[in-house]
């Protein structure tokens, strides 16, 4: 058995009574008090997540921008230093090797924050393709990452307002960190990149300001309510961005791996689409359950905001329309669901 990795906050999770589970090779907190109260804290106030397991890759050199333009789906020329962008690392078939956020540290230096499970594959992928004078290296051990999310986050941390997908040096109670205006919950918030040696104290300060510690359980229900795809569930090397509804992060007018295939799918129209649905009968959809009309649930859970089962899955394109009826096979019991417009949950509609 492989030894699980631990983040610099591991002892704090234990002290807080977290339930720890293996996740992508790491021993991570799935919950503290409970998934539902943690989820509700993020929707109503502010919650903190240790996401130090995520990978940080650096790409630098005079041709770093050109290199990444050919590797990533989104148009890097739309951002400058101090800005970040959600983007996809694609393969030659238009499949999704990983989804990530790229941060432009300087004109020839970029930070990629990638999924923990894909860190080594991404690094290998980029190194196999890197251009001369471009260096790609894994800087994950140089960073801890604490996401603080929810409508009262800035007030609680006394941080200034800033545009989404920007970042800047900052501090919380004198502890230096990079304040990224990004997240995975659909709420306003920040992700704090910090020296691993200072991460424990930063975490303590954040919690001392009334922010609720939250585990990966709530992170998953929060992202599913707002239909952010999870790599490995909803998207992967065998799924293309157009079918996944991620065409908006694909600059099809530039050249990158798989762009021809993506243009073709866009032109022809995808045969299957990643649809979001809400259960109309009792029962909780789970990953891998069959959708009777064709397809399979890629993510499913209970929505703490809607108080019913919700999910996503690839269905024939004609069924990926709001209002379409689906039937989920819940361990042999057919249960009705209705396709809804993404996101499943938004503040304005409740």
């Amino acid at each position, binding site marked *: 058995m492989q030894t699980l990795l631990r983040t610099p906050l591991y002892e704090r999770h234990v002290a807080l009574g977290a339930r720890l589970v293996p996740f992508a090779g790491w021993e991570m907190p799935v919950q503290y008090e409970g998934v539902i109260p943690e989820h509700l804290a993020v929707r109503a106030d502010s919650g903190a997540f240790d996401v130090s397991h995520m990978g940080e890759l650096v790409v630098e050199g005079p041709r770093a921008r050109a290199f990444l333009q050919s590797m990533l789906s989104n148009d890097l020329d739309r951002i400058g230093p101090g800005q970040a962008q959600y983007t996809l690392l694609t393969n030659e078939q238009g499949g999704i090797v990983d989804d990530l956020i790229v941060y432009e540290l300087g004109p020839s230096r970029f930070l990629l924050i990638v999924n923990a499970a894909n860190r080594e594959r991404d690094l290998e992928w980029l190194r196999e393709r890197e251009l001369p004078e471009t260096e790609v290296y894994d800087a994950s051990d140089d960073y801890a990452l604490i996401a603080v999310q929810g409508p009262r986050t800035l007030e609680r941390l006394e941080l200034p307002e800033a545009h989404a997908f920007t970042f800047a040096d900052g501090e919380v109670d004198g502890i230096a960190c990079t304040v990224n205006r990004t997240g995975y919950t659909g709420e306003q918030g920040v992700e704090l990149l910090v020296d691993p040696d200072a991460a424990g104290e930063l975490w303590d300060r954040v919690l001392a300001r009334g922010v609720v510690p939250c585990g990966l359980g709530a992170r998953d229900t929060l992202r599913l309510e707002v239909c952010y795809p999870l790599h490995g569930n909803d998207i992967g090397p065998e799924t293309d961005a157009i079918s996944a509804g991620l065409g908006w992060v694909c600059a099809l007018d530039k050249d990158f791996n798989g762009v021809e295939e993506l243009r073709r799918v866009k032109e022809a129209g995808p045969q299957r689409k990643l649809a979001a649905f809400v259960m109309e009968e009792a029962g909780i959809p789970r990953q891998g359950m069959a959708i009777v009309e064709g397809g399979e649930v890629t993510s499913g859970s209970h929505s*703490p905001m809607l108080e019913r089962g919700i999910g996503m899955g690839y269905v024939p394109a004609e069924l990926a329309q709001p209002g379409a009826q689906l039937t989920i096979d819940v361990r042999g019991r057919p249960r009705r669901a209705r396709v809804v417009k993404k996101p499943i949950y938004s503040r304005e509609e409740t």
Partner: protein
Amino acid sequence: MAAAESYPDDLRYHAEHDWARIENGEARFGITWFAQDALGELVHFEPPEDGATLTKDQAYAEVESVKAVSAVIAPLSGEVLEVNRAVIDAPETVNDDPYGDGWLVRVRLTDPGEADALMDVEAYKQLLAEQG
């Protein structure tokens, strides 16, 4: 609000963390504090049908938390007389009161002698200590 850990001494216990409260040839079934704590806050109870026949040691229902689903094992054989609607409507009732309002089904026992095979509270606590 989740209940504090407890194991009443007037119940009979099954090794799959189920309890039975036996009275006059009938019984109520539920899951123990340990079982609800392991699952976390329940968000769904999939009940058996009224009149369903339950067989000792076999699954008769499901309980689900946000992250997990668990089959519920019948501690004794019997026929379902009543399903607890309060738990269908508010599954967290099981977390709040696992031995009281959080009971799952009421059954007519078909073989009351089966109860001899269940554990008393001391034996069940011993099992938990060994598993812990």
